[in-house]
């Protein structure tokens, strides 16, 4: 108990630390969220019209008719090449001579498209919208073609989304990664005691290892949990993400997530002899994998065994699923039994490992 009081004092004594443990998730969430605010992106396109007819100009006008592309005109392969090299354009469109003739006779007029293949995401987006614009162009010409009504119509919708799709689905998924800040603080708190030698003074006291760790764990979990409130308010009020689930359930599962992550952090803190080491290890585990392995952006590739094993060992992976389910799907605990029980098991494992590796002795 006195350990708990001591830990709270540690956190509160430094206003900067308090601010960072309690408010930093909310602050970082704002920064990360703004990049999803705009939705559609505009791709820079170079256009080289070798045909110079009214039809080719009409095609060019179709391309720049909406916000998909910002078109700049070039003439010559050299210019296209240098724009590609300087990474100024995502794609280049070259209209060959004889374009208009081919369109007027009922052949398909070939148009060359050079995509920048390095960023495949942009390349795919560019190819998709170019195809769409080409089809629009064909329709606008209304060629004398016996085009029957489409025999098959597809009605698709993305469930659970109301407004800006990208933003609504990404912001709840960002919550786990912003909570890695207070979690990492816990790892450092433990390494700090070892480094500065205050652990030695604790050895002399009758405090037992699990009590000591428990105090640390509870202090950091509760402080971070209070930080959920600003995060929740910000997500729902500022960013307008719908919240369809139960707030208490979210709080409960966040606590579970924090127990698992802080347990993991204590394990790291036990391994590391200095705070520097703890920071390096924590960053390697929480930073890059936190973005790429948790299924936040792309779903987890289950064919890669090692990769998915690591993914499922990270508490964040399950919490990403839970956040999305609680916010957007309004799922209850029964629906989420799989990620929540996984989280429970992980929290037991990581807390156990943290306790087992802790040695209350002087090196």
């Amino acid at each position, binding site marked *: 108990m006195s350990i708990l009081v001591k830990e709270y004092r540690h956190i509160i004594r430094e206003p*900067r630390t308090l601010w*960072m443990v309690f408010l*930093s998730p909310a*602050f*970082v969430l704002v*920064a990360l969220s*703004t990049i*999803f605010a*705009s*939705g559609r992106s505009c791709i820079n396109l170079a256009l080289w019209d070798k045909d110079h007819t009214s039809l080719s100009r009409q095609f060019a006008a179709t391309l720049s008719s909406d916000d998909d592309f910002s078109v700049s005109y070039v003439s010559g392969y050299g210019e296209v090449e*240098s724009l*590609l*090299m300087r*990474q100024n354009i995502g794609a280049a469109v070259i209209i060959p001579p004889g374009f208009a003739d081919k369109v007027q006779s009922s052949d*398909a*007029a*070939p148009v060359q498209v*050079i995509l*920048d*293949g*390095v*960023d*495949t*995401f942009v390349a795919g987006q560019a190819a998709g919208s170019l*195809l769409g614009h*080409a089809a629009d162009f*064909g329709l606008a010409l209304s060629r004398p073609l016996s085009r*029957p009504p489409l*025999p*098959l*119509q597809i*009605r*698709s919708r*993305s*469930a*659970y*989304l109301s407004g800006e799709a990208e933003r609504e*689905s990404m912001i709840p998924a960002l919550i786990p990664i912003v909570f890695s*800040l207070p979690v*990492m603080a816990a790892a*450092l*708190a433990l390494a*700090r005691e070892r480094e*500065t030698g205050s652990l030695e003074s604790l050895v002399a006291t009758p405090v037992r290892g699990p009590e000591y760790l428990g105090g640390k764990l509870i202090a950091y979990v509760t402080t971070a949990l209070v930080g959920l409130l600003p995060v929740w308010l910000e997500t729902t009020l500022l960013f307008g993400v719908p919240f369809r689930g139960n707030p208490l359930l979210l709080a409960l599962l966040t606590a579970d997530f924090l127990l698992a992550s802080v347990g993991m952090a204590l394990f790291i803190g036990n391994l*590391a002899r200095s*705070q*520097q080491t703890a*920071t390096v290890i924590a*960053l390697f585990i929480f*930073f890059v*994998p936190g973005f790429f392995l948790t*299924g936040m952006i*792309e*779903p987890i590739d289950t*064919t890669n065994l*090692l*990769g998915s094993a690591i993914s499922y060992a990270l508490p964040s992976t399950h919490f990403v*699923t839970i956040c999305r*389910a609680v916010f957007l799907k309004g799922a209850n605990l029964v629906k989420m039994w*799989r990620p929540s029980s996984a989280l429970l098991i992980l929290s037991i494992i990581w807390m156990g490992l943290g306790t087992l590796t802790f040695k209350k002795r002087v090196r």
Partner: protein
Amino acid sequence: MQDTLNRVWGLVKKEFLQLGRDKLLLGFILVAPLLELMLMGGITGGGVQNLPLAVVDLDRSRASRELFAKLDQTDELLIKAYSDSVAQAQEWMQSGRVSAIVVAPPGYGEGLLDPHASAEIHVIADGSSYVVSSAAIGAAESVAAEIVQDIAVRYGVAGGEAVELRFTARFNSALDGQPGAITMMLGLIVYQVTLVIASQSFTRERELGTLEQLRVTPLGRLELMIGKAIPTLLVGLVNCLLMTGVAVAWFDIPVRGSLLLLMLLTIPFILTQIGWGTLISLISRTQQQAMLSVFALAMLEIACSGFLSPASSLPEAMRLLSYFSSVQHYIKILRGVALRGAGLGALWLPALALAGIALSVTALAWLRLRLGLGTDLLKQRLQIWRHIYRRERRRRTGSRTRKLNAQKPQPAYVDVRVKE
């Protein structure tokens, strides 16, 4: 000059000794980046594959079975469950068992065969993950387009398109996602390692009390800064070189441009991180604060780096901010040199920007160092200034304010803190 070199060399030696003493740290700094690159490179950039799909067949015709077989054959979708009711399938989606639902309503097969009518299918995708839902809908749409094409061919009404787009992908003809993903990872890993090492440098000494010892040595401030920077720079360069080796040997990523140019341009990138790290370590009182600041800064840089969404789609304010993000410029350089074979002629803009950022951040760190190594110094000065300002104001305004001010506690000049 000779003395300066000697002193800096001494400090560099000390830093390396310290680094070498902690075997775990050394392992994490040198080996973990390679392992992480191998692991992440194998996973990311693969795109969306085999999303679990639930199909609801309300038509039970040959045509609907063909539709589902076609859906199952796509890369993106894999049928996981069959159901008779849409409501049940939606339950499954809510619990996360399936990511998409395709419904063939009654009359689908007949509508498809009847040249005067049209058929309909419904696709519901799990919008809670944007990437998943757009991939699933895209796959279903391409299957539908395929069916339409088949029917058109069967009835001989296949009309030619007005325009036929012929795509070629430059630098990466197969449009493989891996080179882009690995260059991004490489940049981010170099970034995190150098920033972390630099950010702990002064804070660690302060917290352990060895900073005072360093201050009584003849080391000047600039020498201190250079001596602290050199080990980080070397570690960062070695890391970058080793990881490039892994990328080339393990993942077959080409380095089409000059490796020397890449390494030369890596130097200002690492120097920027050293500058930021030094700045953070001078401001922070404990290593915990330093680490939290590092993480917050890293998140901002990642947000600006254009890896989650391309930089051109950022809102105006963020785009302005992103010009100051060294990661963004470095990724451009990395991809330019390695994947495009670009030279300095094509990369002068990001290279210049990177050099400018490195210079200004280092200058900021230097200014902060000149202010003094105590964290409370700035605060003390502020308090003194505030006090002078208040005294001035009190002298000018009437007695009412004086009375009010008298009730207020006076600001403390010196922040007294007992070291634990």
